[in-house]
């Protein structure tokens, strides 16, 4: 059967972000998939070197709008790792609270988009309706719907108001109840089940080989979670890690729905603690000594990794960011090949890819300081021009004689 190439993007109605996929199909079956990134590159790592440590936190917040507290969380962990700075206990609870609120709305966002991708728009509208109260809670607690700006080196920037607890509990109860309903619907609904069950399977072996992390790995039976394995603020709460064995899209849905319920439990533990734990929310940090530190945090999509090197001044000398989608996106190669084209899109979406987080590459410059771009037409024409100049015939060949002959006549 003949092969066909289907380009998807960069502006496609189903892609929120500008991305380009090159899908090769044989009839209905996907045989190969390639992707081109770099549309979203903004150069955070370079800008971060010109900002102070506190300003860097606001900068890395804007790497991604959905996991906008995971990057600052990992960043402050990295800065605190340089000097082994301890943070107050109340600050730990506040950090956990914000992180888990973000996890709930991020996972709900995935449920919405997954529903949209399989043509189940009712699920999209419902899940978005449940997501809205969470954003309003975030606005009540931190002052903004998305970019919270709560993290500081040595603690948090804003105290939690204990009088908000009676407003938060009913919303969490509602989310928990609705998630149980959603889990039931996923189990009972024959359409949802048949679209997701056994689709885009990522085996445990592949998940380990491709270094998958976060819910993508946990749905394939790999038991990893930074919140439990390397806690920096999470040691104050009990975290239950959810692992499912199959690795298909259905399991990824189950993992995320159960994680929302688990996040509700963690937030309730925090709220209980706020009444008892009082005190300062930030340890004043005067200066950062020379050295290097790493910070890890379990973002909704997987493990975020930040590396910071300091030379004793008030700016980072080097700031490296590695986002979870960086290692989750290549699992397409394992999960998408061999499935029908109609299932490819939900499989692409199932790892919850975030391209804004991922695109940390840099531009290439040639020896004269000129930018190297992927304009193939331009390159091809330049090569022709160069060859034309180089290949001026040195001596007249036989075929040139024909023109001379016709001219002389």
């Amino acid at each position, binding site marked *: 059967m003949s092969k066909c190439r289907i380009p998807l993007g960069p502006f496609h109605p189903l892609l929120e972000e500008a991305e380009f996929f090159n899908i090769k199909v044989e009839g209905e079956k996907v045989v190969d998939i390639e992707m081109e990134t770099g549309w979203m*590159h903004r150069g955070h790592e370079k800008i971060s070197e010109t900002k102070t440590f506190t300003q860097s936190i606001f900068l890395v917040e804007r790497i991604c709008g959905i996991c906008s507290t995971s990057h600052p969380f990992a960043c402050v962990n990295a800065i605190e790792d340089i000097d082994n700075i301890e943070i107050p206990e109340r600050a730990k609870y506040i950090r956990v609270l914000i992180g888990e609120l973000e996890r709930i709305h991020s996972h709900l966002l995935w449920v919405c988009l997954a529903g949209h991708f399989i043509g189940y728009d009712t699920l999209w509208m419902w899940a978005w309706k449940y997501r809205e109260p969470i954003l309003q809670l975030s606005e009540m607690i931190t002052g903004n*719907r998305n970019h919270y700006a709560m993290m500081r080196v040595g603690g948090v920037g804003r105290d939690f108001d204990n009088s908000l607890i009676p407003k938060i509990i009913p919303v969490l109860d509602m989310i928990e109840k609705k998630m149980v309903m959603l889990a039931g619907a996923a189990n009972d609904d024959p359409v949802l089940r048949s679209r997701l069950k056994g689709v885009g399977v990522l085996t445990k072996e592949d998940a380990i080989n491709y270094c998958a992390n976060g819910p993508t790995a946990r749905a394939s039976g790999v038991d990893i979670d930074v919140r439990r394995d390397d806690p920096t603020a999470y040691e104050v709460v009990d975290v239950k890690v959810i692992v499912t064995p199959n690795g298909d899209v259905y399991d990824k849905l189950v993992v995320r729905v159960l994680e929302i319920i688990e996040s509700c439990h963690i937030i309730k533990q925090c709220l209980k603690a706020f009444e008892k734990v009082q005190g300062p929310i930030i340890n004043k940090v005067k200066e950062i000594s020379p050295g290097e530190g790493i910070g890890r945090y379990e973002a909704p999509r997987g493990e975020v990794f930040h590396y910071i090197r300091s030379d004793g001044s008030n700016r980072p000398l080097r700031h490296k960011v590695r986002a979870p989608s960086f290692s989750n996106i290549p699992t397409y190669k394992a999960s998408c090949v061999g499935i029908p084209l109609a299932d490819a899109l939900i499989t692409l979406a199932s790892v919850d890819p975030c391209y804004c987080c991922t695109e940390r590459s840099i531009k290439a410059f040639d020896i004269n300081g000129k930018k190297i771009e992927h304009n193939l037409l331009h390159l091809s024409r330049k090569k022709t021009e160069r060859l034309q100049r180089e290949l001026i015939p040195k001596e007249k060949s036989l075929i040139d004689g024909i023109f001379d002959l016709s001219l002389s006549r």
Partner: protein
Amino acid sequence: MAFYNKIIKKSIWVFHVSASPCNNCDIEILDLITPGYDIERFGIKLVGSVRHADVLLVTGIVSHKIAPRIKQLYEQAPKPVFVVGIGTCTVGGATFKQSYNKAGASLDKIIPVNAFIPGCPPKPEAMIDGIVKLLGTLK
């Protein structure tokens, strides 16, 4: 033109262009069409193709790689088309002001812009307000 404006006021079809944003404005745009704010009651609808669009909602700083595509999209849109820049990034770059991968100082250096809605991210109410004000300028 007046006839066209009268028609367009009743049903604005918007197309969402993400030009290297941080995803936040994009998510807030999706918030607009879902039950929380539901701007379909004003006849505003998100469409899949730029060929059907009356308004382009552009988010983010425009990177060097995506700038030619944005121009191409603007040329493909049927005229007259209105361009709304969402978020502070389109106005002046916000925290990415010094970025080496920024194609222009602001969005209106790349394509003509009719309205800016600043904010990081602008609240959905602000976006509705901005689009309604844009409608008010149509005679």
